[in-house]
């Protein structure tokens, strides 16, 4: 092989590797409303970049638009991955503005529900077109077997996307990680408390390993 071809080969190998490493994976954080998706997204962003993504709230549908945090580099055990985190609104098949009228006036409640429906539609679209992997967040104190969870996991599987299931809120007394593992045995379940920061080492090790 001539010097030039050899050189070209090794250069293209290097650039290939560089591009492969630098192209961030777009990881969508999905799951039902109130599971703790935004709390998790904020914790990841804070731990690795120093700033947050969006507001957390006990009122469902606080996140009404997919929000992105780009170029978050996560390193664990010698593995490293650069991801764009996409925090999505909780997926649901129904939104009733009257759920919010206790907390705000009617106009705001209607606006909130309209934004929520647009956000859910957008999140579904993202799932079909724009994400490279999924973190599916569940509140481990709740029954994981709901129509929406089953449907969403089915949609994710049909797109062959890598998915990690995060069993969040393990700090709560009613938390059961096993219930989640039993419901979705085909996927890896990682227990954590996004709010208290429990088990984040394993969370990051799994993200680096699985999406890297």
């Amino acid at each position, binding site marked *: 092989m001539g010097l030039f071809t050899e050189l070209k080969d090794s250069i293209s190998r290097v650039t290939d590797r560089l591009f492969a490493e630098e192209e961030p994976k777009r990881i969508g954080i999905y799951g039902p409303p109130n599971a703790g998706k935004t709390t998790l997204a904020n914790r990841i962003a804070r731990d690795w970049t120093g700033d947050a993504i969006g507001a957390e709230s006990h009122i469902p549908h606080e996140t009404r638009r997919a929000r992105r945090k780009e170029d978050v580099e996560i390193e664990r055990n010698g593995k490293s991955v650069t991801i764009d985190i996409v925090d999505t609104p909780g*997926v*649901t*098949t*129904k*939104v*009733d*503005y009257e759920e919010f009228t206790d907390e705000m006036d009617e106009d705001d409640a*209607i606006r909130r*529900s*309209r934004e929520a*429906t*647009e956000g*859910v*539609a957008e999140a*579904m*679209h993202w*799932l*079909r077109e724009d994400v490279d992997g999924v973190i599916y967040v569940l509140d481990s104190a709740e029954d994981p*077997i709901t*129509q929406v969870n*089953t*449907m969403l*996991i*089915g*949609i994710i*599987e*049909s*797109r062959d996307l890598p998915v990690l299931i995060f069993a969040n809120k393990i700090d709560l007394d009613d938390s059961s990680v096993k219930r989640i593992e*039993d*419901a*979705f*045995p*085909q996927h890896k379940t990682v227990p954590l408390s996004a709010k208290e920061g429990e088990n984040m080492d394993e969370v990051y090790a799994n993200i680096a390993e699985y999406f890297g």
Partner: protein
Amino acid sequence: MPKATNTDDPDAPDGVQIDLISGERMDGMATMEKIRMILDGVHDGNIVILEEGLTPDEESRLIEVTMAEISPDEFNGIEIETYPKSDTRNASLLGRIMGGDEPTAKLTVIGPANQIETLHKDETLISALVSRD
């Protein structure tokens, strides 16, 4: 389309119209035609039963279109339940006999969220509790 009630009038005071849609009928339809048919039925207050269910991609589009049609005081969205469920817990004998997660094995029930209090499902039946007020 077979109707489980004796009236075609969606405004009839008592009785709930059930649209039972055969697999054969769905086979010839494009995704958006299926979704339109489902949501038109649901908008009329009907319960729509699909003999053969939807593919995951169709389910995702159904959610997306449903969201676009939600409108305060008019339409709150849908309840949806399938049997047998397509998760792997259904590697049960019955699930396997019925074809596992093939869309053809999924009987799917869809109704208007504001009228259906709960879609209750157990191993052998789906029953919809419909509120009439």
